[in-house]
């Protein structure tokens, strides 16, 4: 398309926006999860920050939002609700905002998504604004409990410091033989103030910066199989809020780049369900490298979906004198029950074994959830 024609279309969309309210179509949707849980087991040592180490046992259910269960039953770590509004204009233009409220956060509600979309054809979609970093298969919709079989996406894999970013993406969809293909490229940056992930590990407040985010993913699906690969790199810097100075990494550097890559294979074969993901986060040049994975299998029996899941998180480092590596593994059993038009209840038991320098410590978590989309 010629630039002038594009400009004309953009202008047309802007006119539609300001002039004729009739041309704009609004869509509202939402989701909510009420989740309760408590940990059990003999008391274990904690490697988390002081605020998260009072309890005899603890379980980090949501690293990115500092959602941590303790040996007292609580709704706080994971209960959330989201509302999304989309305004559709003419010519494939739309604007979307999503607000997510969590008990664990202050302030309690946050504009987590706000982006404009231009889809000039079924093959191409361009988006710009605030979005989720599509690092993992479930990243884009990890808040929508209704959309997956467990109470939560496995935290051993889905545990990173930055989840949203400001930037742009281009997505291409096509049919290749009998495969449906979807590929996207994305770029942007994020500064996460009072970073919640860092709050789990440090008593001092930290800001985390991921400048120059660039990455791409490719998803292929056919009949019972969906496979995805992703690669991303960005700058990395952690700043102490009290001093305003960047933290010095084990290599002596104050900032660097990191890469993340991984893949997932999902299977829906008749009543059988398989979910798996593998991910590498490489900050090895200045501190550590983390490898994580999960494998999950289940079988649908009417409205019930029992699943068993194994997952693990392992670090390695070139600076063993300066950095204590972590390693733990988790085994889970979960049961989902679907009812009504779009509601589900789930119960899940997770058993984590911390194998090196303790971070969360050994624990067993029992949790129940109610999920709905509307």
């Amino acid at each position: 398309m010629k630039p002038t024609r594009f400009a004309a279309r953009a202008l047309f969309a802007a006119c539609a926006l300001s002039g004729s309210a009739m041309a704009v179509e609004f869509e509202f949707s939402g989701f909510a999860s009420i989740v309760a849980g408590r940990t059990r087991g003999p008391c274990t040592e904690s490697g988390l920050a002081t605020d998260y180490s009072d309890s005899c046992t603890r379980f980090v259910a949501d690293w990115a939002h500092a959602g941590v269960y303790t040996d007292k039953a609580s709704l706080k770590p994971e209960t959330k609700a989201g509302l999304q509004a989309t305004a559709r204009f003419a010519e494939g233009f739309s604007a979307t905002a999503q607000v997510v409220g969590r008990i664990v956060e202050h302030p309690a509600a946050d504009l987590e998504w706000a982006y404009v979309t231009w889809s000039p054809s079924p093959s191409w979609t361009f988006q710009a604004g605030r979005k989720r970093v599509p690092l993992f298969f479930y990243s884009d919709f990890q808040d929508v409990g209704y959309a997956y079989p467990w109470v939560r996406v496995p935290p051993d894999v889905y545990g990173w410091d930055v989840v949203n970013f400001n930037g742009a993406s281009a997505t291409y969809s096509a049919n290749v033989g009998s495969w449906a293909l979807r590929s996207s490229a994305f770029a942007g940056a994020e500064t996460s103030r009072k970073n919640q992930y860092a709050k789990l590990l440090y008593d001092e407040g930290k800001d985390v910066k991921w400048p120059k985010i660039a990455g791409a993913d490719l998803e292929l699906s056919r009949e019972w199989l969906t496979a995805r690969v992703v690669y991303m790199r960005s700058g990395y810097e952690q700043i102490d809020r009290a001093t305003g100075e960047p933290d010095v990494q084990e290599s002596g550097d104050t900032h660097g780049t990191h890469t993340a890559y991984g893949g997932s294979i999902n299977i829906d074969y008749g009543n059988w369900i398989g979910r798996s993901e593998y991910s590498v986060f490489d900050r090895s040049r200045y501190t550590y490298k983390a490898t994580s994975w999960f494998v999950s299998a289940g079988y649908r029996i009417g409205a019930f979906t029992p699943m068993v899941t194994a997952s693990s998180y392992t670090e390695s480092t070139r600076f063993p004198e300066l950095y204590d590596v972590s390693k733990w593994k988790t085994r889970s059993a979960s049961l989902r029950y679907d009812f009504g038009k779009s509601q589900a209840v789930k119960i899940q038991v997770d058993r984590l074994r911390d194998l090196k320098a303790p971070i969360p410590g050994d624990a067993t978590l029992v949790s129940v959830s109610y999920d709905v989309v509307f």
Partner: protein
Amino acid sequence: MKPIRSLLVALAGLVIAASAAAEVVVVVNPRNTLTAMEAEQVAQIYTGASRMFPNGSPASPVDQAEGSAVREEFLAKVVGRSSAQIKAVWSRLIFSGKGSPPKALASSAEVKKLVATEPNAIGFMERSAVDDTVKVVLTVK
């Protein structure tokens, strides 16, 4: 007619009626160049995996009311997913800005009316609801 024979005829009639009700067809606009589709190609459109017909032209699917017999048949036999699974799949696309689910129309008559007028439309209905204003590209029993 002997009572037993008439009973058999009535039973046969019931079986035929039941199988006729269970027959679901996928329809497109008569101007669409496609003559046939595979169940998998239809499933990809209804699960948001594809936004195009196999020939590359844009596809705008229409749905039927949740819980309706024809939709249950269509999901079971063509898409191969339950209503809850479909909802979960679309939840992903809705809340990540990758798509919005097909609009549900109240009846096969409404689906037929829309598919007959919209060149890119694709819908499903009972075989008995079809007439020459739409083109059948897939029949499942």
